[in-house]
Structures are given as C-alpha cells and as structure tokens.
C-alpha cells in the first residue's frame, strides 16, 4: 500500500481514527508519520487522539518486544499500579493515567514518552511552596558539587575546600527544610 500523504513511499503506519462513530483507517509511510506532530496531524481530518498516538508510537511496551529466547530481565518491573490497578497497556489504550502513583510505577517508560510529546522529561517550573526551597537548595548543592569536582581536577584544593564547606552549610539548611540529604 502507498502512503496516502506523500503518495510515494510504502505505507507502514496505520492510524485508526474514530470520526463521528465511524472507524477510519489511514496509512502513512514512516517518514510522513514521523513528521506529524503527535497530536495534530497536518491534514484536514480530526487530530489523531493521544491514545491512538501512544499505541502507534509506543505500540507494545518494551518488555513485550523481547524476542523469545532472549534473556529475561533479572528484575521484572512492576507492571501494575498498586494504587489504581492500571497497567502500562491500559495507559496506552486510554491515553491517561489512573492515579498519581502510576507515574511512579511506570516512571521508567516515561522519559521516552515525554521527550517526544513534551519539551523534555524534567519539570523545571514552579513547585508547591514548601518544596520549592528544598528543590532550590538541592539544585545549588548539585551545582557546587560540580564546581568542586572541577576544582579538584585542576588541583585547586583551597577552592575545593571552600566549596565543600558551602555544601555542608546548604545541607544543614536542607535538613532544616525537611528535605532528605542524599
């Protein structure tokens, strides 16, 4: 079958849409398919729903793609959310999570997803008041540790010692704010 968008390459991706109750199938080559923004295909039909997208892009979760005979992972990841009972498969089907704990349960799969549909896998925006202090301090500590390493590498031990004291000071603050020092 030929891709219905470019009408040149072979269609390898099938997108199923539900339009006014009717199931409609679209066939695209992977070049065209990869150019469509996740949620808003650039053609006149309705945007592809997130569920369909997820099942297209993330089709079967990685643990199902393991070929027979391949070594099983030593530690199987928990696949069912303990709080709501959602499976990753169910998430792919619904396009939505069942509860906040799902994010912890499936955290391993999420960076890949967020790299595609978001600007990255890490939140850098505001946070609830009490936490913001903890977070800011943690960031500061991280930064100083990096500078400390550079100082040590460059054999500027006096500078490194000064930075180490700064870290200690910040860690005291962190404990005071109720954050765990790790």
């Amino acid at each position: 079958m030929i891709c219905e968008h470019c009408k040149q390459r072979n269609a390898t991706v099938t997108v199923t849409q539900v339009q006014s109750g009717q199931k409609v199938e679209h066939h695209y080559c992977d070049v065209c398919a990869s150019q469509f923004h996740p949620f808003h295909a650039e053609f006149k039909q309705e945007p592809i729903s997130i569920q369909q997208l997820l099942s297209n892009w993330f089709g079967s979760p990685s643990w199902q793609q393991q070929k027979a005979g391949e070594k099983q992972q030593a530690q199987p990841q928990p696949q069912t959310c303990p709080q709501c009972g959602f499976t990753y498969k169910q998430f792919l089907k619904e396009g939505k999570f069942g509860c906040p704990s799902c994010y912890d349960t499936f955290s391993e799969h999420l960076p890949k997803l967020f790299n595609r549909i978001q600007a990255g896998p890490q939140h850098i925006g505001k946070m609830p008041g009490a936490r913001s202090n903890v977070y800011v301090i943690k960031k500061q500590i991280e930064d100083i540790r990096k500078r400390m390493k550079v100082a040590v590498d460059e054999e500027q031990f006096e500078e490194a010692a000064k930075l180490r004291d700064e870290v200690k000071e910040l860690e005291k603050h962190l404990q005071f704010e109720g954050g765990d020092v790790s």
Partner: protein
Amino acid sequence: MMIESFLERATPIWMSMEDDYSDIVISTRIRLARNLDGYRFPLAFTENEALQVEQAVTHAIKDSTELQENYSYFAIKDLTALQRQILVEKHLISPQLAKKELVGSMLLSDDESTSIMVNEEDHLRIQCMTASFQLQKAFEQADKIDRTLEKALPYAFRDTFGYLTSCPTNIGTGLRASVMMHLPALTLTGQMNQIINAMTRLGMTVRGIYGEGSENLGNVYQVSNQITLGKTEDDILADIQSVAEKIIQKERHARGKLMEKAELALEDRVYRSLGTLTYARILTSEEAATCLSNIRLGVDLQLIEGIKATTLNECVVSMQPGFLQHYAGDVLPPAERDRVRAEMLREALFQENMSKPIIGEKGEDSFDV
C-alpha cells in the same frame, strides 16, 4: 451569589475592558491542572473518593477568607441542563464538567474571572480569564489561588514530573495558556492554514473557539501552548506572548492590505452583514457568527460607527443555544432557535444607538420575484 446572577449577564464585568490589542484579542485564559495525592484521577476513582476530594476542597475554601468571601460554590448535579449549558457557553466550565452528574462541582468568583472546576478530568482545574491580551495578569491570578489551595491540599507533585495530571499532555506545570483572537483578515486572505501549520511545529495549537468540529465559527481562534513539561511557566507564557504578537502583526498587516486593495468590497461586506442582522427573520448560528465577525471587523477598521465592541461580544455569547433559550424563557427546538436568534440580534443592534434604518424607495427589482 445565586446561580441566576451568573446566568443573567451575557458578558461578565471583566470583559468590558479595552486596550491596545482589543481590536484583535478578545480574551486571555490561564488554566492550571492540579490533583491530590492519594486519590485516583476522576477517570478511575470511586464515588467515595470523589466525595473525599470534594470535601478536601471545601475545607480548603473554608480555610481561606479570600475564597470564602468572593466565591460561590455549585454542585453540577444541582444545576439544570440549561443552566449548565449557559455556563459552558460562557466558558466558565468545560463541556466535560457539565456532563458530570455525580461528582463535579465548581467554584466561581463573583466577577466571573475565575472558576475552579472540581473533579473534571483532574481533581482541580483553576481557570482565570482576562479581557484582551493579558497573560501575566491572568497567570498571577491563577498562581495566587494555587498558592492558597496548596496550603490546605496535598498536591500530587514529583520533582521529576512536576504536577501530576491524568493526561500526560498536561504534566509538569499543568499550565495551559490560551489567547482568543478574532482573525477575519487572515482567514479571508487564506493564510490561516499556513499559520496553523507553523504553530503546530512550534508546539502550539490553534483551534476554533467552540472546540473540535466547529472549526472557526466567526473567525475566532484560540492559540494555546501544547507543551507543559520541560519549560518554566515564564517560558511558556513568553512563547505564547511572542507567537500571539506575531499573529496580531500579521492580522493587522492583512487588514491594512485589504483596506488598501479592496476597501469598497470590504465595506460592502460589512454593511451587507449589518443588513442581514438588522432585518433577517431566521438566522443559523453560522450565519450570525459570520455577520457578527464582519461587523466587528468593520468597527475595528472604522468603516462603521456607533456599534460598540462590547455589544458585539455580548451578541456572540448570547446567540448560543443555551442563552437563547434562557432569553426566550423556554426550551426551543433548533428551528425556533434560529427565529429567536434573529429576533435577539435585531433587538441588540437596534438598541445600539444607531439611527433606525429607513426603508427607502422600492428598487426596480422589488417586484421581480
């Protein structure tokens, strides 16, 4: 306040403000999605969990003098279908919340600029609106409420993923910023598709205001951010700000070009629309929206005088089915609505300080039926 007082006015107080952008930008909306840790999301929770979320929110409101004094609380199940529809038409609640028979409720500020939806897709959705183009002001208002509520509610938040939401498209900041714009010249000159494509590539979406399906009713579009994770709130607002400014520039440029190249045709279009709205006896919502859009453009380009932008805003809101039925005081079948719509718009535009059109000599074609 009683629900009736919110239903009475077609346009809320905050809408009647004008500034440098009010020829193009109608309103700005900020939405923050928040959830409570330890409870399943509305798509998966039990009625009991829903009640617990409700109770937690009610307590949080009681703890805050600001929210206690200036907001009214309504359970969706206590509202009639028509009342809900009007709230949707005023963009005070989402269609999704309006459908919640058992678990949904909302908190509405007296001036209607802020509404907090409880148990919609997420446990909480804080929504703030301003007239014209004021992203910062709307965000500050939402942020203030967020900071009030977070003191009393255990928000679901992780350092990595930020605010946790039911849908992964809202994760992180939970922030959706939307600017509602009237873009008749870009539509008329066929540039909208190109803009929509460009926006999509920038991680923005452009939609008709009444959601999918009714694409660009009345040439009104909503531009919003698609990305919520990996950027700060400030970044998101700055992106929307610059994109919206670009679109405003383009629309102004297109209007200028139209005036330069086709002023008469434009004027003709504007006055034909005015003619239709002041004389028609049957008006579909599509036709009414198109005419109102043309008249608005005529007002903005000073091709026409004596009609206020606020009157047109009011007409756009009140020509919707829910409002019409409220105006008529009765449930109306669709055909009846078209008649009442024509009547309502005739009245609104005649009231507007305009000399009543004089019916002149009959033209020579008059009997040529």
